[in-house]
């Protein structure tokens, strides 16, 4: 059939054969017929639908040091024959599958708390180090008198609520070895180490912390963080005496975050200012600063073609920083302790670096050596 096709007939059949050189015009006629036949066959193909209602799903991503179980992925800690090999750190973000939508997350030193705003009995999940009962009491199956010291999967934290099906957990927060939960009706709950009274109850010498989850009544001032933005200006809390920090040129301060030896602020224009000691995010030459230094917006993706990009949330870990832009991108920088930055390598990062997450990041919780990101799917 190809031989019967003359050159003029091929030309009249049209120029739909893009990408084919003039040299192959002899076989082009046959290909044209084939294309026409294919198009007719294509119309008979079934059409698949992959899109549902279009609700953007919440997803949870974790990365960092995995051996304490703080990531909630037991396959990284336990050797299983034929499955993936256990490793010390998860260097890239990995999704943690959970049925409930998590609204608040917090990372401590080797443990994580996740909370959702549901009215079910199970509202809070904890995983990681539990030697001081900082994620609640999880009774061991082997010995009913003891609890697990390491919880490798997200496990429900039992709370002594009066009306568990009416109360919602609003926020969780973790320290080095203790944690606090804020509920909407029943106040604040604390768990964990109380050697310095950080759980808000009376200090007992040589107390065994493993068995106590208590309610505390605290005033609103004590519940807040160390640095408090008051009317856009900064007050530093030192030994119960708030001290005003007279920074000039930083604009109206909207958010503040502090780490081990450094602090960061975010102003209304979306600019990030850092100061303190350590890797501050302005190259390897700047390792300490007494006054706030601005990090240039180009490092967060701002350019002439994308002028709308700006940072709208800032968080600090012990030795690192995290910033989330309005485009849903997460930037991290600082000391990469056991892979906590999630950039795929163990090197420290001296200026803001994008973390590759397959979702829009809404919030991030930074711990000492791991991080948790609350995200939403793209579509």
């Amino acid at each position, binding site marked *: 059939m190809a031989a019967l096709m003359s050159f003029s007939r091929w030309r009249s059949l049209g*120029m*739909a*054969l*893009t*990408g*084919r*050189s*003039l*040299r192959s015009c002899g076989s082009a006629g046959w290909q044209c017929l084939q*294309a026409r036949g*294919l198009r007719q*066959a*294509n119309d008979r*193909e*079934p*059409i*698949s*639908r*992959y*899109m549902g209602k*279009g609700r953007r799903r919440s997803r949870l991503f974790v990365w960092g040091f995995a051996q304490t179980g703080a990531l909630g992925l037991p396959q990284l800690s336990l050797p299983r024959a034929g499955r993936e090999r256990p490793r010390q750190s998860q260097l890239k973000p990995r999704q943690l599958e959970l049925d409930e939508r998590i609204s608040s997350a917090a990372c401590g030193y080797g443990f994580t708390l996740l909370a959702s705003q549901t009215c079910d009995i199970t509202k809070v999940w904890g995983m990681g180090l539990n030697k001081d009962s900082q994620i609640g009491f999880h009774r061991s199956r082997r010995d009913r008198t003891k609890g697990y010291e390491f919880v490798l999967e997200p496990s429900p934290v039992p709370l002594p609520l009066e009306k568990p099906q009416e109360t919602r957990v609003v926020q969780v927060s973790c320290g080095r070895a203790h944690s606090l939960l804020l509920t909407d009706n029943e106040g604040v709950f604390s768990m964990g180490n109380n050697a310095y009274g950080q759980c808000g109850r009376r200090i007992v010498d040589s107390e065994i912390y493993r068995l106590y989850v208590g309610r505390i009544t605290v005033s609103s001032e004590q519940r807040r963080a160390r640095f408090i933005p008051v009317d856009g200006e900064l007050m530093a809390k030192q030994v119960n005496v708030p001290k005003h920090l007279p920074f000039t040129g930083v604009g109206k301060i909207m958010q503040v975050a502090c780490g081990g030896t450094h602090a960061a602020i975010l102003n209304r224009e979306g600019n990030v200012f850092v100061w303190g000691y350590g890797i501050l995010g*302005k*190259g*390897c*030459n700047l390792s300490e600063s007494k006054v706030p230094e601005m990090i*240039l917006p*180009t*490092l967060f*993706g701002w*350019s002439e*073609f*994308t002028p709308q990009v700006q940072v709208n949330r800032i968080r600090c870990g012990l030795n690192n920083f995290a910033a989330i832009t309005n*485009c*849903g*991108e997460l930037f991290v920088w600082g000391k990469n302790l056991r892979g906590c930055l999630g950039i795929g390598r163990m*090197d*420290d*990062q*001296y*200026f803001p*670096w*994008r973390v*590759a997450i397959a979702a*829009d990041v809404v919030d991030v919780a930074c711990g000492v050596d791991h991080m948790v990101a609350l995200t939403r799917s*793209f*579509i």
Partner: protein
Amino acid sequence: MVVCFQADRMVRLTWPLFQTLRGLFAVYKPPGVHWKRLRDTVETKLLKELNSLEQRVPRQQIRFLPSFTEGENGVETSLTVAQLPVLADHPRVLGVGNGNQQLVCLHNRHLTKEYTVQGSFGTATEDFSDTGRLIERTTYDHITLERLERIIAVIQGIHQRALLTYSGIDLKSQEAYELASRGLLRPMHKSPPIITAIRCVHLSPPKFTLAIQCLHETQQYLRKMVHEIGLELKSSAVCTHVRRTRDGIFTVEDALVRTRWDLQSIQAAIQDSRSKVNATLGEDSSGYSAILGEDMPTGVKGQERRSRRSGPRPVGD
């Protein structure tokens, strides 16, 4: 398509004419034509026009040639006077080929290229274009501009990261921070395809148009990008058109169409682009500089090469 002029076939050039043809110019390649065929066509046309120009008569020169005569004491050498044509003016002698050097320099600058890519949602094919074998058909009624722009922003973010990773500079150094904060950290050596900017120009489902600015890309990569955008949007897409609108410093407006592939237009195009090329390469118009990146030997050897190439090289038969 950027073309440089190298004539190693039968051609006769005078020095002023040679000067006007030293440089780079852009040519519009019609779709479906192989680039080699196009280059040969332009070259042949140009050479035909040059050969039809008025030929200069070869100059004559007086030479003293040695000759051998039989004398009483054996073979004696003496000099005889002869008039010979200057071989440098011979029609088959002259060869020029310096334009390639500029092209190599420009390539080593690793400048970005801009493309207009048109695609169509709803089908997935084997080679990611609309003429390939069909793999699947999907729905596309859920695709909105907001969703497409979100995916495109993510792609741009991933590639911005790749720009920094493949730049070849130690990320822990202060130099890396300085360049990254000014947005100048880019790969200056071979790297995988990187998209520096991408935006949606037009969307009317199933058809859409993207403007992509990229480095070190291939056509297959651009088609694959369109396919992956379709997958991220929970549908599928094929690429229907790819059109380059800018290649480094040459844009579509600078490109010569088929009707203008003649000597005067080419000379004018070379003249127009000379200042842009020189500004990019950082050289003056009379010679070539040693800015060829780290691969080119600089120093004594580089200067020797430059001095040898300063004029037309006479080539024997």
